[in-house]
């Protein structure tokens, strides 16, 4: 208490001596607002002019036609495999395998991705780089995971359990009418539980994303520093027509 009074006295003294020129330092009041940036606020021309070359280049690259889709490509046009899923998995295989081979001398066996990772349809018509940004907005890269046969069995169990058309490439899975496995082929050879397989997926899934815990059992992980989106763009540049089909890579036998 004594201390406080002392301070007050000193304060008053200074105040009198320097007649109001000192001590403008205490918050008397505060006022908070938020201002919505709507069309009533003009855009500053010089800033827009500065942005323009960047914007033009982004739009030019994103909207340049790279390929053509004769039909709509979606992830909901088949129960076990879909046009969008097959396209994406096949792209990861075709664009990823040569890089993996050149880095390690080894062959990629198959691709396994997640259905939820496909974020957009591809509309019928022109395909541009913007299409790839819509389908795959994430900065996910391709990684190759070495799995034991046992872990691949868990992968298959995960796939069957999920009931989802998770994108696959390089393997064929046939189900009996009661949803048990009829056959599994990898690179056209029957699945061998006693060997290791090299599986390409996204870095997100390889880290156990989407509860794909079998990827955490990896015997080795090779990062190939290649964005899935860039693999798509490179593929679109290489081909004229993009027309994936629902096929027999994963299907159920009819009774």
């Amino acid at each position: 208490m004594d201390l406080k009074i002392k301070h007050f006295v000193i304060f008053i003294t200074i105040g009198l001596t320097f007649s109001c020129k000192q001590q403008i330092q205490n918050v008397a009041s505060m006022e908070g607002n938020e201002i919505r940036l709507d069309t009533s606020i003009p855009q500053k021309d010089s800033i827009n002019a500065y942005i323009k070359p960047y914007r033009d280049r982004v739009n030019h690259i994103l909207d340049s036609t790279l390929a053509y889709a004769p039909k709509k490509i979606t992830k909901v046009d088949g129960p076990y495999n879909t046009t969008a899923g097959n396209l994406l998995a096949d792209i990861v295989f075709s664009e990823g395998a040569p890089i993996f081979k050149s880095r390690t001398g080894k062959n990629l066996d198959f691709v396994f991705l997640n259905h939820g990772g496909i974020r957009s349809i591809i509309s019928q018509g022109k395909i541009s780089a913007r299409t790839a940004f819509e389908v795959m907005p994430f900065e996910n890269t391709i990684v190759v995971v070495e799995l034991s046969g046992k872990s691949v069995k868990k992968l298959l169990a995960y796939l069957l359990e999920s009931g989802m058309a998770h994108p696959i490439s390089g393997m064929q899975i046939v189900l009996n009418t009661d949803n048990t496995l009829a056959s599994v082929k990898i690179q056209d050879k029957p699945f061998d539980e006693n060997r290791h397989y090299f599986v390409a997926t996204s870095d997100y899934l390889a880290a156990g994303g989407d509860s794909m815990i079998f990827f955490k059992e990896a015997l080795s992980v090779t990062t190939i520093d290649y964005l899935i989106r860039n693999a798509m763009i490179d593929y679109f540049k290489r081909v004229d027509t993009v027309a994936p089909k629902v096929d027999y890579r994963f299907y159920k036998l009819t009774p």
Partner: protein
Amino acid sequence: MNRRKFISSTSASSVFVGLGGLSLGSCASKSAKKITILHTNDMHSHIDPFSADHSEYANLGGMARRASLIENIRKENNNSLLFDAGDIFQGTPYFNFYGGELEFKLMSMLKYDAATIGNHDFDNGIDGLFAQLPHAEFELLSANYDFSNTIMAGHVKPYQIFMVDGIKIGVYGLGIKLSGLVGKNLYKETEYLDPYEIAQDTERLLKEEEKCNLVICLSHIGYDYPSKERPNDLILAAKTQYTDLIIGGHTHTFLDKPTLVENSKGREIIVNQVGCFGLYLGRIDFYLDSIQHIAATGVSIKV
């Protein structure tokens, strides 16, 4: 322009200010000062306004628009500071194409004074963030990320003191826990320290040693979470004693008005966040005078 303003100053505080004014006569009010704090958060590379056909944010935002708004506010009160609370990067192809260069260049042109670092600012790795530093003419502040063993060492300060019209303003930054949110390959050896403890240490330093008149926190830890175990701005405010304003981010929280939270000494302070994508600009005006206002009741707050 749609200004949202709410008045809720208590009668007790009005009375006190009234008495204070009487006791020192008219000279105090004559020499009162006004400091304007402007802020954004989570702009996520939204450099252009949203397109006219956007279903939620049609024609809103954009940095050219923000530039003219800020310019007008500075004309009205040159004693202004402009801050960002992180997640500047990631969200539009501008980031994918230019890695954040344009975001930093434009923030420099808009004369941002400081920003803190959000989790998405690590999206091109700590090297990607480092590569954009030459384009940032503003301070990057983080008191609870220890960058000592990274390429960012020496490029991020825990706090910065700004002198504005003779008023000493201490500003410190806080970042969110990175593990589980950002790949370790991206943030590398960046060490996350407890934001509450660091905030208390930093505000004490700014107030007791540096004698700052105002203490401001730029936080990317998030406004609030269902789990109270996760550090957040509301609990941070309650645990501090010298911080006057917490400018938040991360949770993309749109508030109808800035939140008032009682701090550890029973004084009300402001916690604010303006959603995301540059749709809003936050504005907090501080009025300072020579009167020794007593914490809990002496300061009127209009939000």
